[in-house]
């Protein structure tokens, strides 16, 4: 399966991963249009504790605490791909996944949406947008055998 490795020594905290995440998940795929109107939420966020910067995103755990805790079954692991997927139609926004994630990688900003967001590994792209656009190669894609 796909795995995104974060190399914290070389992350500059430039937030381009967030910008490109928003862009990749916008319907227009245009930077200017994506930032107008209904701007998508980034599914990756920058955690900073200067001088440390870490791009935090879902790590698609092998035995995911968010899936095990989910009250509705919205958060589930695809056994074929190994990806942790989030079915937004089934989600009630109870936030149990936010409580369960040891990385704090489920993004929930009150007032913006009642349903949280998480990394989907850009299933339609050859390389996830955050990795492809990380200028310092702090985010690296690793493909492993099996789910």
């Amino acid at each position: 399966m796909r795995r995104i490795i974060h190399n914290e020594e070389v992350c500059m905290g430039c937030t381009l991963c967030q910008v490109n995440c928003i862009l990749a998940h916008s319907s227009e795929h245009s930077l200017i249009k994506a930032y107008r109107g209904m701007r998508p939420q980034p599914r990756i966020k920058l955690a900073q504790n200067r001088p440390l910067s870490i791009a935090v995103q879902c790590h698609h755990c092998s035995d995911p605490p968010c899936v095990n805790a989910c009250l509705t079954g919205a958060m589930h692991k695809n056994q074929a791909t190994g990806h942790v997927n989030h079915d937004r139609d089934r989600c009630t926004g109870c936030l149990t996944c936010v409580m369960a994630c040891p990385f704090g990688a489920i993004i929930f900003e009150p007032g913006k949406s009642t349903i949280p967001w998480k990394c989907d590994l850009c299933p339609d792209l050859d390389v996830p947008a955050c990795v492809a656009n990380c200028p310092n190669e702090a985010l690296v894609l690793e493909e492993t055998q099996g789910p």
Partner: protein
Amino acid sequence: MTKYLIIGGSIGTLGAIEGIRKLDLRGEIVVVSEERQTPYSRPSIGKYLEGDLSEASLGFGSSDFWATNDVKVLHGSKAVSLDAEGKRVQLDDGRFLTFDKLLLATGAKPILPRINGLEKVGVHTFSGLSDVQAIRGQLSRAHQAIVVGGGLIGVAAAEALVNLKIEVAVVELRNWLLSLLLSRDAAAIIEGAMRQRGVSIMTGLSVKEVEGRKDQPSEVGKVVLSDDSRVDCDLVIMAVGVTPRKELAAQAGVKTNRGILVDRFMETSIQGIYACGDAAEGYDFLEAKNQVLALWPLARLGGRVAGSNMAGGKTEYPGGISMSAMRYFGIPVVSAGNGAQTAPEGSEILSSSSKNARREIVLVGDRVVGFTLVGDVEPAGLFLNLLQTRTVVSAFRSTLLDPNFSFANLPESLRRRTLMEAWA
């Protein structure tokens, strides 16, 4: 071939089947479920009542879960007796089912106080699909509801009813709502939001009696409170708590306390008989003792551990703690472990507040033993991580109340450990 028998058809059972099938693809699994449908998200029945979720979306997991896992389900059946020695269970239709390994995932049932009038039309509990379906049937003529009990279930019921434009009053025996989960200060934020939506909150009171309508005595008309005041209503929701369904176990000589006692492998006092979920009294790692923790995520986890051990594995239940995440009247709340209201002696409480937001961290020595986040809950998982790993926080304790507390604030050793466990 091992014969597995599971009594109960909710999330603990799903977990158990996951656990069994990881190790044993051939064994026969039979599930006895009183429910007429496949498992559904019990905590979401309020959303279903409001019409936010269809019955299909309320269903838990994939609809072909039973078939995929080669499970035979007896829907609408009830187990009435257990013969532990003879390894068989009798059903309400007289049939006997034999087993090699048995799981009691019988859940919990609502507690009903001994008061008069609970049989009247318009009195409901709020724990399963049949409850909300019955409430739905009466919505057209319901205008004023009394919710008895201001815990998690009571507040969720109040929210669904308010959203359905019904006038709601909540009667709570303790001095504030959600008192098992939240401190008075944290609960005050939720109570404020409830009052803004027109809910009246009556604390320090209980209900003595439900009275019928003058013109129709078999239907709810009023409740009498412990201070002898009377409140008009046409709907009463009883939400004073739940109690483990342990009758089957107790009758068969399985050791019980408040719930069915289980060891760290989820096995009861009788070999080959396991229990999990709301029916069981399992290990609480924070209190370092067994106690009933009727929580959805723990039921699934305990079920998985039980299933794995029933299939010959040797999996230890890591233990649970009291924890809950929910959105009450639009306000996100996460609490886990000890709150300021249950803080053990010698603990220290760090807290910060702003309008509609509050953070409380309870420390014993240099370790987190509980936290409550109201409003901004995004870092909740990081605090749970600190609690579960018993991390010493002395080096960064000044950052615990920082609104921007993030993964980057965790010590490097914990960051590495978390990542290694994620990919193990």
